[in-house]
């Protein structure tokens, strides 16, 4: 593990966390989501309408929002195919979640060791996964409201609220996700960009995974 990594930003002890394929997948998903988020927020509240203007004008935003929404959905399905097995909630995750307060207050020593993804990440994943369906389903009604007869106007009303509630929930998750990956857990963003993390990082945050991929945990043995 050696010379090739020399040109890398990550120390030579890096281990691969995300393949190139996974990273492309994540960022496409992120791009679509972010675009929908920005334009969606513009349509959502007049105070953020300027977002749509900055993104090429509101009519353009309205045009691309549902199309990128479909893109987001496809990316999400792709992600699901790739990550579904990694995302199954296990006993480990439940333990993590019961100790989430420790995790949130950075008392990481009290947090039980985690697999490649911890319970919180998995929850975020499922939140986004199901949120995507909700957004797509309600979004289709918003996309083509003219095909809903006036006698079924309540469907339109309901779908708008559903779309917004779903969006708000994903936004909540998204804020946490961005905060954690960019600020709270240094190295996370690097990982999603370059694909690898340091051994220490892996050992700290995802020890079970670390052990699995390194074949043991010489450091952790007490």
């Amino acid at each position, binding site marked *: 593990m050696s010379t090739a990594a020399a040109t890398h930003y990550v120390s030579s002890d890096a281990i691969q966390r995300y393949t190139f394929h996974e990273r492309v997948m994540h960022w496409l998903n992120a791009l679509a989501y972010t675009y929908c988020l920005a334009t969606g927020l513009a349509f959502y509240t*007049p*105070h953020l*309408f*300027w977002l749509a*203007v900055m993104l090429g004008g*509101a009519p353009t935003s309205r045009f691309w929002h549902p199309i990128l929404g479909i893109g987001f959905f496809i990316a999400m399905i792709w992600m699901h195919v790739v990550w579904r097995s990694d995302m199954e909630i296990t006993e480990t995750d439940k333990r993590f979640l019961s100790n989430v307060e420790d995790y949130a207050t950075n008392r990481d020593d009290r947090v039980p060791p985690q697999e490649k993804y911890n319970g919180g990440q998995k929850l975020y994943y499922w939140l986004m996964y199901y949120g995507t369906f909700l957004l797509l389903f309600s979004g289709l009604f918003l996309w083509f409201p003219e095909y809903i007869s006036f006698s079924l106007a309540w469907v339109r009303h309901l779908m708008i609220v559903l779309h917004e509630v779903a969006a708000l929930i994903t936004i909540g998750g998204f804020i946490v996700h961005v905060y954690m990956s960019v600020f709270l857990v240094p190295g996370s963003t690097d990982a999603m960009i370059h694909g690898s993390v340091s051994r220490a990082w892996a050992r700290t945050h995802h020890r079970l995974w670390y052990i699995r991929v390194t074949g043991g945990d010489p450091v952790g043995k007490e």
Partner: protein
Amino acid sequence: MNPTRRSFLKIGTGAAMASVLGFDLKAAYAESKELKIARTTETRSTCPYCSVSCGVIIHTIGDKAKNVTPQVVHVEGDPDHPINRGTLCPKGSSLMQDIVNDRRLLKPQVRRPGSDHWEDIGWDQAYAEIGRHIKKTRDESFITTDSQGITVNRVESIAWNGGCTDTNEFNYLAVKTMRSLGVCFIENQARV
């Protein structure tokens, strides 16, 4: 002429930001779409359909300057007219489509005996042929006296059918010309 869009003043998005905090105390106005008949030439006419005789105003482009061929851009009721007072029915309201209509006949045509199509014909040629037809038919069948020997001076082989929208003056011309030819069959939409 006739832009379909309105231009709104000071309510564009940029300006919206300025007014977020309500700084702008000047009232916001929207400039309305241009009134398409603001500078047209108005001609008073009468609707050609039913007998209410609604007054209509035909709006044409241009101010009657020599170099302009007037084009009808709008037709509306004449508000001064005591009967219709500006109102028009669905037919009267659509008179512009009658004046400017691509189904209009634009040149004289003739269908020759036995033919299955129209041919173009010049006006002079048409007048010459029609004049000849009328004279021939009249001369062939003119009745100077009836069976009792009484002078009747009539023609029973030519008929005149006048339309509902022919003006009085035109009808008078028809009565003059047809009666002078001796035509008896002078009829009009008025009968049916």
